[in-house]
């Protein structure tokens, strides 16, 4: 991979990767909050089963859910998700504008030089593909 290809890849995927990182951060925080609830449910169930079947108290440490700070924690998860969607929208909007109005350098050359390598930002296979719902 030469420098031009690497440069092209970075320019093509930097925005989507940042957007995906922010979305993942939000999802991760959301799942972390969800894990507390699921774990509390699981530990309660295991302890109840251990008590019912084997007459054994506290088979596993009981996880407690603190319900009061839960809405605040959930609110924190929304911030990176919205930021990620905004970055994604910005990348999408910029690429759409570039496709509709290509820069003068590309227009004067007649074709994008990087298209030969199959990595052109204007030759994106998914860009021309329709959405599965056909809209």
């Amino acid at each position, binding site marked *: 991979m030469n420098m031009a290809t690497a440069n092209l890849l970075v320019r093509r995927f930097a925005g989507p990767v940042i957007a995906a990182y922010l979305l993942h951060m939000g999802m991760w925080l959301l799942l972390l909050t969800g894990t507390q609830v699921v774990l509390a449910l699981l530990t309660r169930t295991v302890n109840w089963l251990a008590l019912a079947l084997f007459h054994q108290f506290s088979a596993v440490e009981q996880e407690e859910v603190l319900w009061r700070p839960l809405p605040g924690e959930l609110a924190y998860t929304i911030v990176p998700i919205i930021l990620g969607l905004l970055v*994604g929208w910005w990348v999408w909007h910029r690429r759409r504008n570039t496709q509709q109005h290509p820069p003068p350098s590309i227009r004067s050359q007649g074709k994008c030089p990087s298209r030969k390598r199959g990595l052109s930002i204007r030759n994106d296979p998914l860009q021309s593909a329709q959405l599965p719902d056909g809209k």
Partner: protein
Amino acid sequence: MRMIREILLTEYIGAILIAVLIADALSTLITTVVAQISLHVELRRNPALDLHRLSPTYSLLDAFSRIALYLISAYLIARWLYPAKPTESRTAAQSSEGA
């Protein structure tokens, strides 16, 4: 929602997100297995070792719930972005192309 879906689909953001969530699940699985193995090796080497640690059952339940949530969310996003069943309009377009 359609615009969000289009953004996630055409910019590969959704694909990257699904891949990272699956990688998270794998990473959690490997971390838990390695932690349990290293703990057992350490306890076998030094049985008198007093580790203030959570029980293995708790660690396994924690890992299990996290892996399940990661995989479920990745699956749901994948099903939303890439539905398995083609819609009627797409089928009609493909049949018109073939004819």
